[in-house]
């Protein structure tokens, strides 16, 4: 049996069913999908970069993704991952085939969970998940709030972002319909 295929089929069904039941709210409910794996590892680090690197090492060693690059920005409040060859790509395709934009990223959830657990960050948010089917690459943008007073500190995360053109072509969580723009 292809256990990865089986796993992705099960996950895709759950992801689409949950979207059917909760609509966009489902995006915010799934932050604990994925972290169990990383919690079983000895992740160490004194800051976001070290925690992220430690997570990447475990995730790639386990074959969950072939390669992950990361960068921080936004005065330390943004963490961007470029995930290549993720084992859940098949899940993403199945979810999209049902007309749902994939919203569950176990890899992102793992990293965020460790940032919460190890660095005691106040809160975080998986802000953007953009998937390039052709290259099998996912772009993940996450907001990190070390303390509550970081909320409301805004910068332009996409300034000089090398993936801006692709990102703009991707669906937005909050701009699904043009009429969401306030008149």
């Amino acid at each position, binding site marked *: 049996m292809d256990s990865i295929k089986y796993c992705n089929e099960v996950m895709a069904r759950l992801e689409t069913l949950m979207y059917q039941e909760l609509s966009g709210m489902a995006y915010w409910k799934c932050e604990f999908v994925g972290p169990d794996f990383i919690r079983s590892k000895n992740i160490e680090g004194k800051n976001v970069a070290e925690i992220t690197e430690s997570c990447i090492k475990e995730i790639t060693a386990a074959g969950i993704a072939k390669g992950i690059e990361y960068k921080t920005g936004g005065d330390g409040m943004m963490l961007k991952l470029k995930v290549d060859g993720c084992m859940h790509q098949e899940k993403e395709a199945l979810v999209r085939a049902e007309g749902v934009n994939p919203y569950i990223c176990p890899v992102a959830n793992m990293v965020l969970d460790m940032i919460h657990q190890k660095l005691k960050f106040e809160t975080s948010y998986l802000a953007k998940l953009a998937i390039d089917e052709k290259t099998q690459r996912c772009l993940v943008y996450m907001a990190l709030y070390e303390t509550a007073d970081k909320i409301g500190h805004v910068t332009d995360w996409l300034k000089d972002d090398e993936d801006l053109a692709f990102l703009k072509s991707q669906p937005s*969580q909050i701009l699904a319909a043009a009429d969401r723009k306030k008149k």
Partner: protein
Amino acid sequence: MTGQEFLDVLSSRKSIRRYKPDPIPDEMIDMILEAARWAPTGENYQPWRFIVIRDQETRNKIGDLSKQGSGSRMTAWYCLNELQQRFEGIEDPVKRAEVLEFMYSGRVSEFCKQAPVVIAVIGDLRVGSVDVPYDLCAAMENMILQAHAMGLGSCWVYGPVASTRDAIRFKEILGIPQGMGYYKVLSYLAIGYPKEQRKHPRPKLPLEEMVYWEKFGNKERI
């Protein structure tokens, strides 16, 4: 009460986020809760439970959590240049900047600190009902309408329980048993005497855009 009079109550309701500090009499709170009790519920399971919160310190904690929930999302949306697009329709740049800051700071969701009464709506997942979220929504709507009918303002607030981590914190604040199989936290209702006069009515889609007859897509009344 005629059908039109009832419709007038429904159509004159609006979400109120600014309240006078005046306390809400117990009799009014009881009537709001009584209205919830009569909401439709699958097989009469009545899974809803209500926590009435008047303690300022608790409301502050919930307000902070609400602010944090909304603010964490909207800050990110702003930094990704998406939140701005939702408010492009505000022509005055100063006003637009003020509105955006109000949103991404999370202050938009902080108002329960000023609401004299907050009612958390939760559902017991162990009673056997298969309709818990829907029953809770029906109860919430009944409370909103009852409050409005008595001249109170209210607002249904989801912000502090939107993410699973925040829902856990919300449960901690109110001492609600943790565990995914015990209680669902739907959201809370902030209630008080209205301090604001909002523009009303807000534009609503015409029925022709949302009603089909006999089959999906058929807009002709048969």
